[in-house]
């Protein structure tokens, strides 16, 4: 009895362009993918292959001078690109949580982190500030920050890199969204912290049975935390394979080579 369940996220023929004085650049070129309920899909690719744009496009937040030229995006059955502003706002944060990289610059420096998390909750739930504050404290504890009650009043500049990343995860997940989009959530962090943060991510996602899109440059992360993985290059989604298949050898050698080439240890070269 295999019920044909709809994927949580359906992307078809997504093309995103950036207009500049030297010409038009296609950041995403005819990208199509599905994310099934409960699965974590990884996206690997080098810098500039369009991974971050993909995440932002999924919630219709492509910053100018970019625009979505064509394509269809369906999340939980809703056509994202056709949503009016109020519902788009509700989609973001409530149904879809976004985890960004470089968490520190994405937090408001003059407001306490607890207040920021609570504000996200308040934006989507008609409840009291006290209630939101408590929810936020629970989230801080869930993301593994010690002394959550104290830490609620801290500011971003008072926290370490790993901790602000956890705060961002808390902000993304406080409304228990069904879809989580993570944009290189661990780049810039210490290797040991990376591992902790990713395990946390996986546990929270699986606890809520959310589906997730995990963008990364690290094949190791993909191997450990994703069910399927797609390779992006120059705006195109080239291959999509099941992670289990890679290691059981059921995948073509060309694909393996591609995965290896798209993989990690991209040292910063000046």
């Amino acid at each position, binding site marked *: 009895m295999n019920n044909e369940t709809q994927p949580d996220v359906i992307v078809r023929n997504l093309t995103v362009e950036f207009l500049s004085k030297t010409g038009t650049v296609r950041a995403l070129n005819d990208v199509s993918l599905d994310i099934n309920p409960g699965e974590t899909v990884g996206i690997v690719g080098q810098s500039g292959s369009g991974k971050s744009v993909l995440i*932002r496009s999924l*919630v219709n*937040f492509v*910053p100018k001078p970019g625009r979505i030229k064509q394509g269809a995006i369906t999340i939980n059955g809703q056509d994202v690109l056709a949503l009016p502003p109020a519902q788009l*706002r*509700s*989609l*973001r*944060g*409530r149904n879809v*949580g*976004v985890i*960004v990289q*470089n968490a520190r*610059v*994405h*937090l*408001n*420096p*003059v*407001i*306490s982190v607890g207040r920021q998390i609570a*504000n*996200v909750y308040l*934006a*989507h739930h008609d409840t009291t500030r006290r209630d939101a504050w408590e929810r936020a404290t629970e989230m801080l504890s869930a993301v593994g920050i010690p002394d959550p009650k104290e830490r609620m009043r801290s*500011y971003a*500049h008072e926290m370490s890199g790993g901790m602000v990343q956890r705060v*961002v995860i808390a*902000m*993304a997940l406080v409304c228990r969204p069904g879809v989580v989009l993570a944009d290189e959530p661990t780049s810039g962090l210490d290797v040991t912290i990376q591992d902790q943060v990713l395990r946390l991510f996986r546990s929270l996602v699986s606890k809520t049975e959310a589906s997730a899109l995990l963008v990364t440059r690290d094949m190791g992360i993909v191997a450990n935390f994703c069910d399927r993985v797609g390779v992006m290059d120059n705006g195109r989604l080239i291959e999509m394979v099941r992670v289990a298949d890679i290691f059981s050898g059921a995948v073509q050698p060309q694909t393996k080579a591609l995965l290896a080439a798209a993989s990690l240890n991209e040292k910063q070269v000046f």
Partner: protein
Amino acid sequence: MTKKNSRTISGYGRELLCQTRIGAELLTRFIKALWRIYVVRRLILFIPLLVGVSMAVFVLIRMAPGNPAYLFAGPTASLETIRAMEIKLGLDQSIWVQCFLYMKNLANGDLGVSLITSQPVLKDLAVRLPATLELITFAMLLIIVVLVPLGILSAVGGNLAGRLSSGYGFLAGSLPDFWWGLMLIFVFYTLLGWAPVPFGRIDFGLEPPVVTGFLTIDTLLANDLAAFRSAFGRLILPGFTLAFIFGAPVLKHLRTTMATGLQAHYIQYAHLCGLSRTAIFRYAFRNSIIPPLTMAGMTYVYLVGAAALVESVFAWGGFGQYAVQAAISSDYMAVSGTVLAAMLIALCIYLILDLVYTLIDPRVRN
């Protein structure tokens, strides 16, 4: 006290030393902890800063060429009178003694006697300073109430709003403030007859008893509504003159910081989390307000002196006008007193501003 040490005298001495050391250590740690609190630091440093500035003013005035005794004694004075005046002014003493006398007088509130008014400088300032403060506070309020919303709107608004406010900025920066005041007088008083007579702060004979020196407040305290209307009416033209011209840089600054503020990463993330437009706006505002606040504070301080020209045009009897007249007449004591007062006000306002920052921006607190 340990058992071993309590038995002998040297042991007792050793114990005492130990306790003193611990006490000293605790004290230093306490002071260091206090020091780390920014607010305390600023407050403690304020006094030496005042002293330093006063001495700097002293040095500056002493560097002026010419013998002030000539001025005080008058142009027809004989050599003996000049000599006597020199002794009276303490100019025959060494520079250190003069400095000491200067600081001593300052501490007693003695700023000397003005040449023109023959009043103690302190008394002159006590009358004129509130006049200026009332005027520039009014101008500042106008700026805040009118220009701040305009600035925010134009930051959010499109190209036309941007061009308009840019044009206003250039225009206001090119107008001489005294001339602009004259133009406003011409239009609103001479031509239209809407404004009251543009001289002085209040109709002659309606002055209320002095409480704060702020006529608007004092008239209200004396329950004299006619006087209040008169005082307020006279504030409008000079206040508007100042606000129009000195508000422009504040507006420009506000626009720029708001515009860049709205592009910040944390604002983008707030969008991504689905926060409402008002919530996002509040985020941006909270952050963008800091540089314009600095700007407003600096403008306020600047206005204390810069309002002099407008004060002269409107015969306001203010601080700047007093400084101008003192300078032109080489009124040695008055000039010295006003420069000192100006700098002290600047220091006070900057201190208040810094303290306000600690409330708004948590990054400053350590």
